[in-house]
């Protein structure tokens, strides 16, 4: 009998070994696959246990912080947004129900302390992870002025430091209050205008006449034209079998390229476009970064590229056989983000060099030591310093005596270009202004769009750009 008893013991032990193996499969080998299943409350709860780092404005004021509270005897952290309407789409939310967006998403690794080499204790989970604090480039005063000016409108304002690419203002209207996301999300998404949409990087609009800055640069690059090249405007040009008119059917008579930009003469730029051809114009578009999208430290895929868009695909800039006359004046399937137009403006401002735009300035760990610093880098060379200087001068004329006089600042030279693109509704326009200041040594470049405006970019958007630029330049940034 003892032999049978011994064998029984081995069978029973074998059963427990089997249990141990299968348990090891669930708890160790297959664990991460189970952890990542959607709706796993354990994974959701685990995010609440981490003291998430803060997101700060450039002056150190708090935009997102975690506050500890006690839940069933456990210390959990609640995310709060002291200034939830400041830049809701850019800061984003980190929520167990709605997920993560904006910087909360893209910087999640740093914010949850999951970065760099983990100590052995950290790897084993024996030491609580502490999130690092993310300091952004956002300028509090200017961002709030942009919010104020956009209130009640649909549109966006983006301002960069053209020398570094630092994003100083990233405002999109309508906005929402981040502190309402957890409790009132259905109300937020029911609001008209799509409050969750970050229009600065995801809104795609016809650029209208702001695109003439690109066309002018291509014209000078080609060597076929100078700022003084003469044209004669008879009110219309025949392009691709259809007559192309000026805004409000105006007729300007003889004009040079500078005047054409100053007064936004469509016929002149259409002629320039035809003379350049899609190959030359497309090459300059490539140089300005059309067709690509920088990350701006936002989550992958949330910054949309600009260019000629068909459906959801961005076409090649240099494709031949296109209606290049209408592309040259910012029509014909051209759709651009405010970010892209701010890069155009910033490229001219920074002697032809477009710097990589960024939102994250530094990241410091819980003990205060810096774990990440942004290093400025070149995004693209748009044009030569000489041509940038010539376009700079032409754009200064726009504000001095052309369509953009509303952007003028006393005592400072401002350069700019307006745009008033037709929308599907007659009499309503996407009103643009792009520009930079001070024109001699630019410290800020902006792009402003106001959707469905009955007024032109020079009337609606130029004053917003002026306010934002003034705030940045007087704030000592």
């Amino acid at each position, binding site marked *: *009998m*003892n*032999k*049978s*008893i*011994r*064998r*029984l*013991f081995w069978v*029973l*032990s074998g*059963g*427990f070994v*089997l*249990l*141990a193996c*299968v*348990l*090891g499969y*669930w*708890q*160790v080998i*297959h*664990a*991460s696959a*189970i*952890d990542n*299943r959607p*709706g*796993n*409350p*354990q*994974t959701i*709860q*685990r995010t609440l246990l981490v003291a998430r780092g803060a997101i700060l404005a450039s002056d150190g004021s708090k935009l997102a912080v975690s506050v500890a509270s*006690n*839940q*069933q*005897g*456990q*210390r959990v952290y609640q995310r709060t947004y002291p200034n939830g309407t400041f830049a809701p789409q850019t800061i984003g939310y980190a929520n167990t129900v709605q997920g993560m967006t904006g910087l909360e998403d893209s910087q999640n690794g740093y914010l949850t302390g999951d970065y760099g080499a983990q100590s052995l204790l950290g790897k*084993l*989970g*024996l030491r609580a992870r502490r999130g690092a604090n993310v300091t952004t480039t956002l300028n509090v005063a200017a961002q709030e002025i942009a919010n104020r000016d956009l209130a009640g409108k649909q549109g966006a304002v983006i301002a960069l430091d053209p020398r570094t690419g630092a994003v100083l203002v990233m405002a999109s209207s309508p906005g929402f209050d981040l502190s309402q996301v957890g409790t009132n999300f259905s109300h937020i998404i029911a609001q008209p205008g799509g409050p969750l949409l970050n229009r600065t990087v995801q809104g795609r609009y016809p650029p209208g006449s702001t695109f003439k800055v690109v066309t002018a640069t291509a014209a000078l690059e080609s060597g076929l034209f100078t700022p003084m090249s003469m044209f004669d405007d008879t009110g219309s040009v025949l392009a691709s079998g259809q007559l192309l008119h000026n805004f409000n059917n105006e007729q300007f008579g003889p004009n040079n390229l500078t005047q054409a930009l100053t007064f936004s003469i469509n016929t002149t730029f259409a002629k320039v476009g035809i003379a350049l051809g899609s190959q030359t114009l497309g090459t300059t578009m490539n140089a300005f970064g059309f067709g690509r999208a920088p990350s701006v430290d936002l989550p992958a895929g949330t910054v949309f590229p600009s260019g000629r868009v068909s459906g959801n695909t961005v076409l090649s800039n240099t494709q031949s056989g296109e209606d290049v006359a209408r592309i040259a004046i910012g029509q014909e399937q051209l759709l651009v983000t405010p970010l892209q137009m701010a890069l155009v403006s910033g490229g001219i401002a920074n002697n032809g060099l477009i710097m990589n735009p960024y939102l994250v300035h530094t990241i410091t760990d819980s003990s205060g030591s810096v774990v990440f610093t942004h290093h400025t880098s070149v995004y693209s060379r748009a044009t030569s310093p000489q041509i940038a200087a010539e376009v700079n001068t032409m754009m200064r004329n726009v504000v001095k005596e052309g369509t953009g006089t509303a952007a003028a600042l006393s005592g400072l030279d401002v350069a700019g270009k307006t745009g008033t693109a037709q929308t599907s509704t007659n009499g309503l326009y996407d009103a643009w202004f792009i520009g930079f200041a001070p024109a001699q040594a630019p410290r800020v470049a902006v792009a402003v769009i106001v959707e469905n405006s009955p007024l032109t970019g020079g009337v609606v958007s130029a004053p917003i750009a002026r306010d934002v630029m003034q705030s940045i330049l007087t704030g000592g940034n």
Partner: protein
Amino acid sequence: MSPRTRELGFLIPAALVGLLGTASVANAQSRTLGSGALTIVGVVIGLFVLMHIALRLRTPFADPYLLPIVATITALGMVTLYRINPVLAREQVLWLGVATAVFIVVLACLPDHHVFEQYRYLCGLAAVALLVITMIFGTDISGAKLWIRLPGGQSLQPSELTKILLVLFLAGYLRDKRELLAVPTRRIAGIALPPVAVLGPVLLLVGACLGVLGLLNDFGTPLLYFGVFISMLYIASGRGSYVVASLTCLVVGALAIWAVIPHVHTRVDAWLHPFSDAQGQGYQIVQSLYALANAGLIGPGWGQGFLIGPNGNYVVPVLDTDFIFTAYAAELGFIGAMALLCLFVVLVARGLTIAAQAPDGYSKLLAAGLATTLGLQGFVIIGGIVRVIPLTGVTLPFMSYGGSSVVTNFAIIAMLLIISHRSRAPFRPRVPRALRANAQQQIDSLDG
């Protein structure tokens, strides 16, 4: 060192596990280690000391390791219960008190386990009767009709007592028919079969248990009974072919039940594809897997897992009984769970060692049956949780909350210790004083 002194020494680490575990929970939950928690620990330690004293008085030569192993598993269970529900932990202390009383009564009133041998058929009948009573008066709790409600809100789980009665019956019966069983009379498809007259009543009784439990809608207990039956049959006969034949019966029976009872389909589906109905039939097992996976290799530690939701409910249903293993492994991780599995293996090993050391066939069968019951019960519920077998509603011995289970299991331990004592005690014949004096005189005269 005497076995009892050794036992006392091994009880100290068990007490430390309980004390440190409780302190760890209190620390993680940012509660202070108040008098309430310390009272629980103190009372539990006191109960084990009482059991130890009873063993010193009644069974001084019994196995010294069994009680410390049980004490360690109990300590792990009590700390886990205290972590998920302090109120239930206090109630469980009361049940542990009742179990201690039963333990001491068994030791005091049962000098020789052989008394059950002559009442084997009575035990068998009592087992069936208990199940029939449950079927008639039973209350449905979490899908299985296994409880009898008592006035005063408590409920009793007769199937726990049934398992002891079944082992007592099988030990007596198989011991009686052992010689007949060992000689196969016919072969079917090369498998040796014992005489029908011998095996018939056994199969009938076990079949009755299975049938009744099938109707009670619980599959863990029949699985447990069948496993115990096969194990004891194997020990009695020493024939693997009987095991094969019985397992074939089990599979055929299971397939038949699967074909007949639609309720089983959902249970099998929840076993094989829990994630396809994660909010319905698979909810328990999916939530349990989430909690286990979250723990990983070493786990977050006692009191630091996510077991209690913000509303105060368990994250995994029936966490205090069926899923107490999940509550434990979700906080101590794979390594902690391995420690618990090892404790169960050692428990089974000690039980079967007692069986191997026993001098007679009845004691061997009884001890092996009781030890197998404890081991298999652990295997069935943990196996259900880790999806080796379909999930069933049996308790994890010495860990799950519940009175019937803990009382029965301590009675089993008491019986094992009695068997162990009787087989290890040195033979000391009782010699009358006059005879002894006479013998001394003869020795003295030889010297002279």
